[in-house]
């Protein structure tokens, strides 16, 4: 059975790129463009990996992260956060909230794939 990744991202071209990359690695990619319903989607899909943009319509990636980590069920869920804001404060906040990996856009494809493999090794 294919591993599932939920990609929460609102930029179509970035969705296209990441979907292309992860599909070729054997992932089933689900897309979520709205922040407000993202947590609900995670509960429904129970993905093996969550890729989370920082700036989303409806609800910020940081708030989604905090809500998930406050639920015991998602304490171990690998969460890879991608942000275009590139401010130090965002990284500190995300790490305090329990993010698994924090990467800044624009990213290198190799690095993202390495991070995904690293986070889902077990």
């Amino acid at each position, binding site marked *: 059975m294919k591993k599932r990744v939920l990609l929460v991202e609102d*930029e179509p071209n970035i969705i296209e790129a990441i979907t292309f990359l992860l599909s070729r690695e054997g992932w089933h990619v689900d897309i979520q463009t709205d922040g407000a319903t993202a947590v609900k989607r995670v509960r429904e899909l129970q993905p093996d990996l969550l890729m989370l943009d920082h*700036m989303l319509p409806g609800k910020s990636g940081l708030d989604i992260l905090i809500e998930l980590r406050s639920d015991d069920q998602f304490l171990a869920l690998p969460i890879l956060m991608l942000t275009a804001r590139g401010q130090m404060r965002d990284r500190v906040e995300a790490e305090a909230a329990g993010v698994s990996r924090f990467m800044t856009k*624009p*990213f290198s*494809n190799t690095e993202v794939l390495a991070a995904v493999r690293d986070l889902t090794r077990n």
Partner: protein
Amino acid sequence: MASINLLIAVCLTYVAFLFLVAFAAERAAARGRGNWLRSPLVYTLSLSIYCTAWTFYGAVGYAARSGMEFITIYLGPSLVMIGWWWFLRKLVRVGRTQRVTSVADLISSRYGKSNVLAIVVTIMAVLGVTPYIALQLQSVTLSLSIFSDPTGTTDGGMNLVSAGFWVALGLSLFTVLFGTRNLNANERHNGVVIAIAVEAVVKLVALLAVGIFVVWGVAGGISEMMVRIDNSDIGQWQVDSSRWTALTVLSGAAFLCLPRMFQVLVVENDDERHLHIASWAFPIYLMMMSLFVVPIAVVGLDLLPENSNPDLFVLTVPLSQGQGGLAILSFLGGFSSATSMVIVATLALSTMVSNHVVMPIWLSFQGQGATVSGDVRNVVIFARRVSILVIIALGYLYYRVSGGSGALAAIGLISFIGVAQFLPAMIGGIFWRGATRVGALTGLLVGFAIWTYTSLLPSFGADVVLSSPLLEQGPFGVEWLRPQALFGIKGIDPTVHAVLWSLLLNTSGFIFGSLVSFPKPLERLQGAQFVNVFANSGHAHGWSGSAAQSEDLMVMAQRILGGAEAQKLFRREAQIQGHDRYLPEPTPDFLQRVEREMSASVGAATAHAMISQLVGGASVSVQDLMAVADESAQMLEYSNQLEAKSSELLDTARQLRDVNAKLTQISVQKDAFLSQISHELRTPMTSIRSFSEILRDGHELKASEQTKYASIIHVEAIRLTRLLDDLLDLSVLENGQVSLNTETGSLADVIGHAVTTTQAGAIKQIKIDVSDLDTSIELHTDLDRLAQVFINLISNAQKYCKSPEPRLFIRATKTDNEVCILLTDNGLPIPMETHALIFEKFSRINDQDGSGAGLGLAICREIMIRLGGEIDYVPAARGNRFVLRLPV
């Protein structure tokens, strides 16, 4: 001479009886059974010391000489008691709260506890009252002489001088024994008060008895008496209105100002409510005292030889009728009048002299530490006893020097005018906060000088002190300075003249002095205490320092108040302060209380100076204290300035805080802006980088995929470029660095250019309707910039209009001063809550719908502002409408 011996025996028995009464009263008071001693009746009777030998004997003489005028002497006090009880009540309240010991203490305390004032008032009082004391001695010796020579025409065989001496000595002893037994006015003079109350009854009974004898025993009934009166000169009411007015005012003023009256009225008062009863009871007493004056005078004039002394009718009429017993009773009445006056007057004067003259001098000689090391209590009592002896000796001396000359009433009036000089300072002090020490001093000195010049000195008779030429023609022949016709006003009665000028100039000096001088802080404080006595009873000026040691304070208080009293005071205070220790903390409150207790014994000024010696730890005079008080007024001023400064600083701080908040807000905005820009730039870069890596890494891609990814890179690169263009544009516009290229052109051309630009190469087409556009509108503005606004608005409509048949209507109207252009689409109106935001930077309403950075409308707004116009968003009936206005 047998009758003389009998008389002396009666006198001695009477005095012994008074001793017993006084002693019993003091014993009862000491055992706490003295409530009846403090009844309103006793208070009222004690006021009767107003009726001295002058009124007992002199009123008859006065009536025999001047007719009904003697009534004024009773009228004044009656009017004061009835009509002025509100003033008396305030006076008594002030006296009680300030623990005033005398009239000098009252005036000194009111005007900043001034010792100078106290000394002046004391000297004036002694000078004013001495003739009065002489008068009492004279009356007693005269009445004694009557019994040796009933006609009263000669001195008889008895040595009057030695009689006067023995009387004076006896009175001194009585006063010393009962007036100076204790020091604290808390216990007051119970014995003395009850003794004078008894004497008040004796003199009233005696006078009534003689009167009844005269009317029914001699004249034979009321109607016969009336006939006799009508036939005599006395019955003729010859009213000299100016004299009557002056005498009534004078006796009323004297009633308030006489030291002995102040003593019984205020100092010995226990309960303000006694005044209510006294205000009607005392006038009745006076009425009864005056009831038989005229009958006795008329009968005396009828019965006795031409040259008989009318001042002694009260004695000589019964004697001439063989009524020895009645004469002795009458003598006792006169004796009571004289002794009670002398006792209380010397008591009051000795308090003043010891507190205001002896104690300050003694203190200044002792220097620092006297208050704790010397035996102050004994010094005070000793000073008081010596003062009593000296004052009575002065009276005796005056009696000897004046040789018993002059009618009793005349001497009494001179005294009255003298003490009446205190009245302006007293009334002003209680009712006028603006009254000052300088004013009081000025008024007193002026009034006293005029009294001396117009009344006292002329009373000795021509050529004794003032020569007759001076009396007749004035000093150095200056007519208008004649002692009895000042300022050229002649023909008025000497008494009226003296009353008028002394009180008028006294009051003027007092008011003028108060107005031109500035009160010191202590004066102002005391002034407020006195004038507002009903508002704030019991809050005297406080001690600010508490450097005084409790031990020293205790030692000093023991010296003044006596051991038991001081210990009681201290223990009570310790309990109030709530600790078990024997000595209380020397709090300002407590210091103030001790001062008040002590001032009851030694006067306000002395008590103040004594406490200040302790508190300051150095020899601090009252003057120093006043300087301190003045300094504190300056400190107050300085602190007010500081307060103003500090409020200025607060203001500045608030402004700084505001600026800081603004800067913080700007900084937050800047951070948000940078985050936004970062996001807007990095997002297309992410796609470009990711897809270019995919293409480079040679994944097995289909041709279509390759084309698609390459075109994404292309689109994102364009988006990036446009974003940078927009940012630069906006930055230039916002900084106002844009230079406008103003030309004249047709609005239709500008819009046509914009439509062409946006339609070329656009994926989504929108139908633009310009059919209603007025093609004649000409504009004079930067046409390229205006075209940019239209391009932004049209491309927005193209991107966001969700209608199945997207349409955009463009219309324009022109008025006298502006062109108004409407762009209306048929898409979904944007949500209400975002209306205010759409012109802000990066405010994309719906992120998913376009690749815009959210800068388009912000740029539009900046351009319109630069062009002098404006842009607004209005939700239309079905769609969105932008309204552009441009000045013509």
